[in-house]
């Protein structure tokens, strides 16, 4: 009698790459729900657009690279990339923004570099940076959060704005951003940056409507939502704790020290941790295994580097938030980090 041949080991624990990516999607839910609550239903349209573009782009690329069309979709990584990019951009950004960003992320950043597992940079963040540099106006048009906003758009109005860049009533996004007093409102981090340059102290800035409890109104809850999702990923062992810890440490420790020395010029660690894309970055973006360091020591260093770069750019750089830039810069350092954090192999120690 003859039998089937297979290489050992003959068993497998049942957590596949596709499942891991599915878990990442589940863990995004609390943050995304909060974001849609504070910024309106636009985020859902952005996600749908991004997913459609990503799936088509992924299929086109695999076919162009002579592989079965659905093979690359199986691992679900394109879906994660698409969602991450969609939730990083303003909810009312015109449709072509997310389409261009997703195309760039999938086609150039992922497939041109050799496809899944080969990309040097985090595709979602590379796409984000491309958009931020190319379309700065559209990419910074964040509405004030719904709790303090003058306007609240219906589903139809949102869709109309994304497609035609105007509400059915003819308001541009720029106009929607105006507060009660007619002054255009910005994101909390943006506000801090511009107001500080105008000579206000942080204490004064925090009096503004953009801020409540710990940090920016709305933004703090969204960040906490992503924190919850991130902790779920750690609990499920989808990601290890090393990168998020390094990330938050690298950001909050310098922020804390700076805050002690200049409490009115430097925002404290809590403001940093709960503003912008901090938690999304710490748990969902920096933890993309492909473009991160591989050893545990390396991961901590990688996280620390991102966190510190964010602190530096937020404090002294030209952009209010800096997760994308910091992640890309740290991606470039990964081969170096990996080289110097390679663990000692059994029997090669002293």
């Amino acid at each position: 009698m003859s039998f089937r041949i297979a290489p050992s080991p003959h068993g497998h624990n049942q957590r596949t790459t596709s499942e891991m990516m599915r878990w990442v999607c589940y863990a995004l839910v609390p943050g995304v729900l909060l974001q849609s609550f504070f910024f309106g239903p636009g985020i859902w349209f952005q996600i749908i657009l991004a997913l459609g573009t990503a799936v088509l782009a992924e299929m086109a690329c695999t076919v162009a690279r002579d592989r079965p069309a659905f093979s690359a979709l199986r691992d679900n990584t394109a879906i994660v990339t698409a969602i991450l990019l969609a939730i990083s951009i303003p909810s009312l950004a015109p449709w072509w923004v997310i389409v261009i960003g997703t195309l760039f992320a999938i086609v150039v950043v992922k497939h041109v570099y050799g496809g899944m597992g080969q990309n040097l940079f985090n595709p979602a963040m590379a796409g984000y940076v491309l958009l931020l540099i190319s379309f700065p106006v559209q990419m910074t048009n964040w509405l004030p959060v719904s709790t303090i906003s003058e306007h609240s758009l219906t589903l139809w109005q949102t869709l109309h704005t994304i497609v035609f860049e105007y509400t059915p009533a003819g308001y541009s996004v720029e106009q929607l951003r105006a507060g009660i007093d007619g002054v255009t409102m910005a994101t909390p981090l943006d506000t801090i940056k511009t107001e500080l340059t105008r000579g206000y102290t942080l204490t004064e800035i925090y009096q503004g409507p953009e801020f409540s409890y710990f940090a920016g109104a709305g933004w703090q809850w969204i960040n906490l939502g992503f924190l919850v999702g991130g902790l779920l990923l750690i609990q499920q062992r989808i990601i290890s704790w090393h990168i998020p810890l390094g990330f938050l440490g690298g950001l909050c420790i310098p922020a804390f020290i700076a805050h002690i020395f200049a409490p009115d010029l430097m925002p404290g660690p809590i403001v940093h941790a709960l503003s912008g894309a901090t938690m999304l970055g710490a748990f969902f973006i920096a933890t993309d295994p492909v473009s991160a360091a591989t050893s545990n020591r390396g991961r901590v260093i990688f996280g620390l580097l991102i966190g510190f770069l964010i602190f530096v750019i937020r404090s002294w750089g030209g952009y209010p938030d800096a997760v994308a830039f910091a992640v890309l810069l740290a991606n470039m350092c990964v081969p170096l980090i990996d080289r110097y954090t390679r663990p000692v192999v059994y029997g090669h120690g002293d």
Partner: protein
Amino acid sequence: MSLFGAVIALGVLALIFGVILGFAAVKFRVESDPIVDQIDEILPQTQCGQCGYPGCRPYAQAIADGDDINKCPPGGEATIKQLADLMGVEAKPLDDAHGEEDVKKVAVIREDECIGCTKCIQACPVDAILGAAKQMHTVIEHECTGCDLCVEPCPVDCIDMVKIKAKPETWQWDLDTVKENIKANSIPVKVVE
């Protein structure tokens, strides 16, 4: 005057450094293999002459003198890659004119047909055939490089080139070959490559 001083100072410095460099060049000279030896090291030493040179060393010499690196079928792709690295040139595909990369073989003489003409002995580049005139010849299997050169001169065509049989200790962990090894009725096997 200061110009003069500067020229002298620089001149003296140049002299000192020149002496140091000259000394270092002699003292710390790196003994490296002549390039021909390094090339010869890479070549598979089948001595088959398919490259058009009478053996590996002459071909190594020819490469060192600028010949193409893709004329060695027994070495195949791997050898070309190594040669390309060594010579700092682009690797290129094997030149078909010199033959194709093939599985490793050895020569085997059908001994009852051998007439003892010694022609193969003269043809063997590595002296791997034993025998004398009017005596049956035989190939020392582990010395045979599979170069094929003995096949042509044999007047009675009693030399076969046979594939080297895999043994458990030399087996290449190729699960694809398992079924043919045991000649069992084959079940389609999926092996991840």
